[in-house]
């Protein structure tokens, strides 16, 4: 059985993958690259008395991770509506036996 196409699946998926890759590259840059590989260079600067590389490793990177996920949610919701694949009560099926 083949799935029938009701919207431009190829385009939707391409844009989804592009979004994921973009956000993941920020994740990679902020996590491994800035907070580990270049930590010593960043420690030359300090913010509010804290060496910047140290702050990124123990605080800053976590804030960026939260923001990245928030951005993913917002952008994915927008894309879903644009392609009309967002869930509505009629299109959502879940198990109802336990409520």
């Amino acid at each position: 059985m083949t799935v029938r196409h009701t919207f431009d699946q190829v385009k939707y998926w391409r844009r989804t993958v592009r979004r994921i890759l973009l956000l993941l590259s920020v994740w990679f840059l902020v996590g491994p690259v800035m907070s580990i590989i270049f930590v010593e260079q960043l420690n030359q600067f300090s913010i509010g008395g804290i060496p910047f590389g140290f702050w990124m490793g123990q605080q800053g990177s976590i804030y960026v991770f939260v923001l990245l996920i928030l951005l993913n949610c917002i952008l994915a919701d927008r894309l879903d509506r644009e392609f009309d694949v967002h869930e509505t009560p009629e299109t959502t099926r879940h198990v109802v036996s336990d409520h």
Partner: protein
Amino acid sequence: MGIQEWTYVMVGLTFALYIGIAILTRVKSTAGFYVAGQGVGALANGMATAADWMSAASFISMAGLIAFMGYDGAIYLMGWTGGYVLLALLLAPFLRKFGKYTVPDFVGDRYYSRTARVVAVIAAIFISFTYVAGQMRGVGIVFSRFLGVSIELGVVLGMIIVAFYAVMGGMKGVTYTQMAQYLVLIFAYLAPAIAIAFLLTNNPLPQAAIGDILPKLNQITVDLGLTNYAAPFTELSFINVLFITVALMVGTAGLPHVIVRFYTTKTVKAARWSTFWALLFIAILYTTAPTIAIFAKYVILDTLANRPVAEVQAIPWVQNWTQTGLITLKDVNGDGLVQAAELFGSKTPEIKAAIDRDIIVLATPEIARLAPWLIALVAAGGLAAALSTASGLLIVISSAIAHDIYGHLINPTAPDEKRLLVGRITTFLAVMVAGFFGIYPPGFVAEVVAFAFGLAAASFFPVIILGIFWKRATKQGAILGMLTGLVFTAVTIGMIRAPQIFAFLGVTQPIIPDFFGINAQGVGTVGMMLNFLVMWIVSLMTPPPPQEVQDMVERIRYPRLLEGAQAFNPTQDPATV
């Protein structure tokens, strides 16, 4: 009332709350038992995930570890939060759309193979038991330190509570108790941190207050002859910090008890948003932990270092924790003074740290002279963290046995009531086994936490990612990839940690000291790379997956059900694949 009485009150109240929730959330179907009837909202699931994720180790040990490691403690902070970015972007929404009960469900269906399912079941059970034994032990330790009961009795009390709500309510009961446990643990963690931040700097926000204290801490560590607190790569080499961080991130995204939480939401959108809420709730604790580390280390060095030993031993909180054996102050060089190295240890092996790292969280409220009820709350928080993680893991173990083994392989035609009964029985048995390991921990339990993350990174993460993003991934590729990752990681960790793991065989030396400079915690990253590589090569050499599997992959990529796609209905499902 004293600390002891308050602790009884706090622990008693929270346990009563968990039991009350258990009674209100009983379930009558397997869908309720394994995925909470897929009726959990985004915020609720985020909160439950946060409690599920933050274990006894996060709550009790992490701040202390960081206090001892300085910058290098970032491996835990980044590793255990950065993994959520991978989960949110690459796994959670797609697995929710897939919409079944367990991680082996996905592996078995996507790779159209019973063998793949069985390999996944074995990995899930091994990872979860490794992890849960430590949680039950944590419950026992909190009981013994705060209430003076034996560790064994503490473990048994924890077992009774978990058995009660996990057997009755399954995933649904676990979800709602985890939400309550999150609130208990986060309040218990923040209150002392805010109090001590205010005490030291007049700024109640710990994340901002460290700006005043860190420079002083850096200065005092250098003055006292310790390594500069903020300096990187003092405890771990650069290559280890990098590989361990990646292994913890990828391992986080591959841990079955975290993944299944995203099966429980109402919609794909809710699964996506619950990754955000989860990391937000986790970040509240994870950005506070390094501040507690900084405050506590500064206060301890500032008040104790270079003071006469007798004077330090007379300080009330030092006395209290000396009695529990977590402070073992010895005047090693016999000069009558307490040296910084005698407190936190030094590179020379003859000077052992007098302070157990768990003190940092457990004793901070006392060091800051907080009210007894706040100190008591820390005990309830530690128990909440351990119990919530234990219950999530027990559901994974139970579902792997009752749903994947019994429901799919042994008796695929069993009616729902019978499956539910088997689920309840396996949950109960899993609690018993976990409790047994908690009371009689195999010598290596503490050592093999590296196993749980390393194996999750090396087994599940690559097969799930490629299963979603690469239709060409085949069953042969997945099976060989998982086995390569699992065997490589298990064997390498086994060789590096041989003295701890095989002590009963009389092994005293590691078989290899490390893997090209990467220690046991970091080899999971190498295992993951090997898994990807093997899967890619073998998939290209074997025939492509059947059309219906490729259609399934197509379906999970879009939130709304596609026209012509076959609906999945878990109440009728099962086991037809």
